[in-house]
Every structure is written in structure tokens, then in C-alpha cells.
């Protein structure tokens, strides 16, 4: 009976799918290859300041934006609705404090709504007296028109998620989702036998940077001949993550867990711990709680990162552009290093909050660690 229901439902969905699913390709072999190469390339710029480094050598000239005197930098933020963005935003505020040339920093927060962010950008253009606009878009497609409009009035910097236009002076981002997926999956492939069971945990469907992590991770795992026992969405919910892993453990063995984001990694580890199982090979991220658990339990693990230091880079770029210095552009590709067993200790800091992102590039900043919630 249930099979019938399941099949008819699946059939119904599948028949209508091909006509509905649209363009955007999250499994692009060219982009995959490009990012795979970028992971191994040596970045230009000071090695001890990865937030100032860039991969490739294209520069955008900015003399026409040079401005005398103190400047007003405006920032339209998609939101500070998750710990990654909180850490990043703190980086940004602290970076602003380092620039005497920035006279005013205006920040508007769209609280995760496209519609609101479009309105925010319009507000800033109409009355913000901005010299430059930084945008961290809530979604790629929806914010494109607003960014295009802004480009006609003033220099624009986009970072984190992109937009579908080349009009911004530069688009700052780390190597990217494909790279992130590759780093974790290659580690898994290297540390388990062929044919081993891998559980893939994802946050939610539809987000560009997460879709590409998944597609590249899946590609690498499959090519390595591993057995994907399941792909589940956790909704970034600890309780749901733990339940999912518990259910899988009831049904069979798990040799490795690949995650597209590490916020719930510790909950997943606890499912093994509480059930009395050995902890398998894990792909997490650079949150303190995961790093500490990794060290404490001596797990075979890796933490690919999507560095929060890019929030610093946005301010550095703004400052340089308004002084007429050229910046990497139209894309500023930042290096995207993983944390491995070899350098784990450098990133562990027990004084920091559990969901602090260790790859923040913020340790040398004046208000570290208090501004980030550390002790």
C-alpha cells in the first residue's frame, strides 16, 4: 500500500518536474574545475593577511571614484540572522574602526527579506548621502535590479552571495561552494575504504552556495566509489540533525558524515556518542564547538571554511576604492583554506563562544576577543 502511494506521488511529482525546474545550474563541470584549480593556486598579497589576498591577477581601476576627505560608507545587509553573519558583521564593524578615512558607516538590515532589502537600497540611494554602497545580497536573482540601479549612482561592492550583473566595481567572495564541497569530500574519500557508507546532511534546498557544495561533494564521493546511504535536510536544526542520525544508526552503519555546513555538526556527533557508537569520519566547519569536540574526541575530521574574514575585505575594498587605488576586480577571489588536524590547534580558542567561526581573521584586531563574545 505505502509503496503504491509513494510511487504514485513520486511519479506525479516527476512528471511535472522537467517543465518547471529552471535554468540555474548548480552542477556546472566548468565551474567545478575552475574552483578545484583555485584551491591549489597561490594567492597574491600578504600571506599572513588572507583577507587582503586575491587569486588571479585582474585589477579594477578606480581613480574615477577617488574622493578627498572623510567618506560615508553605506551597507545594505541581508541580515544577521545566523551566527556566521554575526561573526562577519562584527569583523566588519571592527574593520571600519581601523579606517580613519571612513567618516560615517550606515548600516541597514533587511532581516532576511528580499523585498525589504530592495526597499533599503532605494532608501540609501535616495537619502543616505553614500559615497559607496556595500551590498551583501539576500538572494542573487532578486537583488540584481536594485544593485543595477545603485551602480548608476555610485560605486558598489558586492560580497558573499553574488548578483547577476557585472556592474559592481568588485564582487568579493572566497573560492566558493564547489571548492567547499571538494575539500570535505576529498578528505572523506581519502580516509574510508571504497564502498563505505556516507551520510550527507544538508541545511536546505535552493540556496546557491549550498547547492554547489552539495553537487561537488556528491560528485567527488561518487567518483571515489563510496555508497551514499542518504541525503537529508536538517533545516540547521540541532534536534532534527541528531534525530536523523539516530534513525540512520538504527538502520545500519555510517562510516562517514559529510555536511554542507557545520553548525549542527556537534549534534550529529552526539548522536553517535549517546548511542555508544564510534565517531566516524566527519566533515564539519570552523565553529569552535566542532573544533573543540574534534580535538577532545580525536575524531578523523576536516573543517572546510567559508571564511568570515570576507566581511573585513569589503571595508578594505571600500576604503581603497574611495582613495582611487585599484582593487582586484571584477571579482576578488579570496583564499579558502580548510582546517585540518595539522593546524587544528591554531584555531582552537576555548575562550570563544561555541558558534564562533574560527576562520575570522580577527585575532589581531584591537577588540578581540570581547567584541566577538569571547572572554
Amino acid at each position, binding site marked *: 500500500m505505502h509503496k503504491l502511494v509513494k510511487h504514485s506521488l513520486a511519479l506525479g511529482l516527476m512528471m511535472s518536474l522537467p517543465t518547471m525546474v529552471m535554468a540555474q545550474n548548480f552542477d556546472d563541470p566548468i565551474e567545478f574545475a575552475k574552483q578545484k584549480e583555485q584551491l591549489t593556486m597561490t594567492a597574491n598579497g600578504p600571506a599572513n593577511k588572507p583577507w587582503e589576498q586575491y587569486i588571479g591577477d585582474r585589477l579594477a581601476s578606480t581613480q574615477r571614484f577617488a574622493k578627498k576627505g572623510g567618506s560615508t560608507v553605506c551597507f545594505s545587509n541581508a541580515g544577521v540572522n545566523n551566527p556566521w553573519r554575526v561573526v562577519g558583521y562584527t569583523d566588519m564593524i571592527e574593520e571600519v574602526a581601523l579606517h580613519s578615512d571612513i567618516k560615517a558607516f550606515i548600516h541597514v538590515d533587511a532581516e532576511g527579506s528580499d523585498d525589504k532589502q530592495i526597499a533599503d537600497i532605494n532608501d540609501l540611494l535616495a537619502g543616505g548621502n553614500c559615497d559607496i554602497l556595500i551590498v551583501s545580497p539576500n538572494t542573487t536573482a532578486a537583488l540584481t535590479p536594485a544593485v543595477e540601479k545603485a551602480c548608476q549612482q555610485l560605486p558598489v561592492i558586492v560580497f558573499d552571495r553574488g548578483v547577476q550583473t557585472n556592474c559592481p566595481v568588485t564582487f568579493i567572495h572566497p573560492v566558493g561552494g564547489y571548492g567547499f564541497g571538494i575539500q570535505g569530500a576529498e578528505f572523506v574519500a581519502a580516509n574510508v575504504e571504497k564502498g563505505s557508507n556516507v551520510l550527507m546532511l544538508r541545511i536546505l534546498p535552493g540556496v546557491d552556495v549550498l547547492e554547489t557544495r552539495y553537487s561537488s561533494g556528491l560528485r567527488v564521493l561518487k567518483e571515489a566509489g563510496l555508497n551514499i546511504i542518504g541525503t537529508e535536510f536538517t533545516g540547521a536544526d540541532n534536534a532534527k540533525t541528531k534525530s536523523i542520525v539516530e534513525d540512520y544508526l538504527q538502520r545500519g552503519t555510517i562510516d562517514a558524515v559529510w555536511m554542507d555546513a557545520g553548525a549542527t555538526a556537534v549534534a550529529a556527533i552526539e548522536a553517535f556518542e549517546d548511542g555508544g557508537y564510534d565517531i566516524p569520519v566527519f566533515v564539519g566547519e570552523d565553529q569552535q564547538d566542532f573544533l573543540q569536540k574534534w580535538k577532545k574526541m580525536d575524531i578523523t575530521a576536516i573543517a572546510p571554511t567559508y571564511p568570515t574574514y570576507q566581511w573585513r575585505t569589503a571595508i578594505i575594498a571600500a576604503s581603497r576604492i574611495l582613495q582611487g587605488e585599484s582593487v582586484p576586480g571584477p571579482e576578488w577571489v579570496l583564499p579558502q583554506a580548510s582546517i585540518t588536524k595539522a593546524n587544528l590547534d591554531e584555531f582552537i580558542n576555548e575562550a570563544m*563562544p561555541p*558558534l564562533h567561526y574560527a576562520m575570522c581573521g580577527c585575532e589581531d584586531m584591537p577588540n578581540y576577543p570581547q567584541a566577538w563574545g569571547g572572554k
Partner: protein
Amino acid sequence: MNSLVTFARRYTSINWANINPVYFVLAALIVAIILNNPNFIEPTGYMNFLKRAAPLAILAAGQLYVIVSGGFDLSVGSMITLVVVGSSMLTNNDPAATMWVIPVMFGMGALVGLINGMVVCYLRVPSLITTLGMMITLNGFAFLWSGGAPRGYLPDTFRFFGRVSYKDIPLIHMLPVALIVLVVVGLILYWLMHKTNLGRMIHAIGDNPNTAKLAGVSVNQARISAFIVSSLSAVVAGILLGGFAGVSTSVGVGYELQAITAAVLGGAVLLGGRGSVPATIAGALTLMAIFTLLNFLGMPQPVRQIVQGLILIAAVALTMRRKGKHANS
């Protein structure tokens, strides 16, 4: 002999009609789950299920108080988040702090319930809007308090209630502490609702506030108490959820609607007057069983949503039919 048969038939027929259908649905679902996944009969299978269902069951039983009194409490999900985030802030990695942090959380819960109740009673704002405002406010407050990301771990002493299971127990092998909490809290809420004057008053005001007032019921007192019970149950649910899976800023999201759904599945009549604590707990288990079953069937999230929506509407339609029949007979 003949009369005995008639008696027996009447007895059984009355009995069947009076049993809340949620229990049959729950039983059927459990059978379906077992057919799909025989491991469910193992203690780890059903005990894990009960452990996970405990927070929702407690939350729904608390929500029932507000529903029976004729209102809604949408603030419970945010209350859960606030409890988890607040506890992580206050315990500050100190295992001994749990001792005083938990009472503080209950105090905070009582305060929130009191404010909800007073706004509804004295400012006369509908509970839907009052608790919607409270939901937004508490969520903002949880973020504000923690600066957007939790600043501490929850110590093991705090996580004991939601995480630990007693192992090596004869017959059932393991016994989650969360299940003990569910049984204890469930009994208290059952007693309070069905055996005390407060329970009768809450039923009375939900049925008809005007008659209740004329009959000498202190409407405001009963209504405020209902909101306090609901908030306190959210505190318990928060302690269990924080214990189960640790700190996060999104733990409570969506729980308010799930709690209302569970109560409705248990046959509670919205806008008041009727509802039972055991049936609501069964409603919560039913909801969790539905999710579990769909999960075992490998249904994607969208299908789960569709099924949940259909069941919600069907449950209420059924309750209204039952209610209509009883009223007519």
C-alpha cells in the same frame, strides 16, 4: 441473558463512540511504523521516539490550557528559544549554575505568561495578537541577549534532562530522563485540568465567558493562569530541547503551530470549552508518529507538509462532526 447481551452491546457501543479517535489513529500509525521498520520494537526505537516527542507533548498539553480557555498562545516557540539561549548565557559553562538557572527560567516563564494573560485580560487585546507580539519580542530579546549567536555551552548538568537515558534497565533496556519528565509533567497537567477547580474554571470560561462570569468564575484569574501554565510548559520543553541537542538560536521555530496542531489532533475545540490532556499528549505523539512514518517511507519534506496540512483539516472537521452529533443527540 438477552438483556445481558443488549447491555453488553450498549455498553461496548457507547464505549467505542466515546473513545477519542486519536488513540486509534495513533495505534494504527505505530503499527504502520513497525511494519515499515521492525527495529522500532527495539527499546532504542520506541524510547528514542518517546524522548523526541516529549518536548512537543508537554508543550501541547500546556497550550491546551490556553486553547480550552478560548485563546491561542503563539509565543511558546520563542519562549523555547529564549530558555535555551538564556540558559546558555546564564550558566556560562558552570555546571553548578544549573541549580539556580532552571528556577530563574521558570520565573521568566511565569512572568511571560503573566504578561500575556494581563494584556489579554486588562488591555483586552485578542490573544492571537498579544502572543504574536510576544513571539516577535521574545525572539528579538533572545537574539539581543546573546548578540545573535549563543555565547556559552549548556553544561551536562543542564543537559541531563533532555539528553541522558538510564541504561541497562531490565525489560526496557533504556529509560530516557525526558520520558520521566513527560510522565510527571503530564500527570500534573492532567490533574490540574481535570481534577481541580482551576480546570473547571478554564473549561467554563472557554465555553462561555459571560455565563462563567455570572456563575461566579473569576474569568481573569483563570485566563491568566492558563497563559502561565502554557509558558511554564514551554520552559520545560525548552529545557528538554536544549538538553537533547544543545544550544542554537532556532530551536523553538515552528513549535507554536505544532503544539496547536497536536492539541487539535487530540480533539481540542479551538475557541474553547473542550479538550483533554491525555488526548492532547496522544495528539502530539500522533503528529510525531506521522513525521516518523513519512520519514521511514522516504517521503521528501514537501510531501510531509502536504500530509500535515490535510490531516490538520481532517482532524478538525472530524471533531466538529463528532461535536455536532453529540449536540444533536
